[in-house]
């Protein structure tokens, strides 16, 4: 895991996000009713979820790794990835709620996507509560790893599958066209895809910083 100590990808992350922050506001966007300029939120709201998703994916991989090899460092990766993912989750929910207020009319309209997102959020909160409930290190790591491995696919189903099967206001769900139909002219893709990469890398960076702090604490404890 020597890559977490390298600098190049962190500089890349900062450059990419800075580019999307500037281009996201300056470059022209498709003109749509009700959305008007808020369509630019696409460059900020969606990458929050991408960052959460990348970091949660890493946590599942390390959960599996922990169950396979039993290294306590892997358990630390899992918990710090989930912690970072939760922060991006909250940001995604908040940005979505604000966007919804000005386009759908309310912060929370009981939309299937919003409700599913809230349920999956509670699912991961339960993971953190579960960890807290156990003092013994190995038991905590093992049980929470198993929980994490189940929570991840349930989160995917809740966020990406269920809302598409029912009526939803959210773009891409409930029969609405996804934003793919808005960036057919590739104008938005040039900012959106770098934003995905940039924010995901920022998420991973924050997770690695937290992990490095944890490792030092852990090593000092066992001394």
């Amino acid at each position, binding site marked *: 895991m020597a890559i977490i100590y390298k600098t190049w990808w962190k500089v890349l992350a*900062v450059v990419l996000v*800075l580019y999307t922050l500037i281009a996201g506001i300056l470059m022209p966007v498709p*003109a749509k*009713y009700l959305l008007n*300029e808020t369509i630019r939120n696409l460059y900020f709201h969606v990458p929050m979820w991408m960052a959460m998703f990348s970091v949660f994916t890493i946590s599942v991989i390390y959960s599996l790794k922990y169950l396979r090899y039993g290294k306590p460092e892997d358990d630390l990766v899992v918990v710090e990835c989930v912690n970072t993912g939760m922060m991006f989750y909250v940001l995604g929910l908040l940005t979505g709620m604000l966007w919804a207020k000005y386009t759908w009319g309310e912060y929370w309209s009981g939309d299937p996507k919003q409700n599913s997102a809230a349920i999956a959020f509670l699912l991961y909160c339960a993971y953190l509560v579960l960890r807290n409930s156990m003092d013994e290190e190995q038991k905590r790591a093992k049980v929470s790893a198993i929980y994490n491995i189940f929570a991840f696919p349930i989160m995917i189903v809740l966020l990406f599958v269920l809302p598409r099967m029912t009526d939803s206001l959210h773009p891409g769900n409930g029969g609405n066209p996804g934003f793919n139909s808005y960036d057919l002219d590739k104008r938005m893709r040039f900012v959106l895809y770098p934003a995905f990469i940039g924010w995901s890398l920022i998420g991973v960076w924050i997770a690695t*910083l937290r992990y*490095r702090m944890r490792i030092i604490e852990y090593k000092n404890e066992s001394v």
Partner: protein
Amino acid sequence: MKKLLFLLIGLFCGIGAFARQEAPIMDDTFRSSGKIYVVITIIAIIFIGLAFYLFSMDRRLRKIEKFEKN
């Protein structure tokens, strides 16, 4: 706050235009008056500040890790 106000005005204008079958109105006043660059600079300053904070944490951790290794 100003951004929010302009956003609201832009939204309401958009809804009105729908009735008359015009194109949705996008926010050009903010842009043409050059004030958009103020917003961009502010956002850039905030983000660069945060990036510096992350880099400084990274460097601090590296120092501690090097110390621990010895």
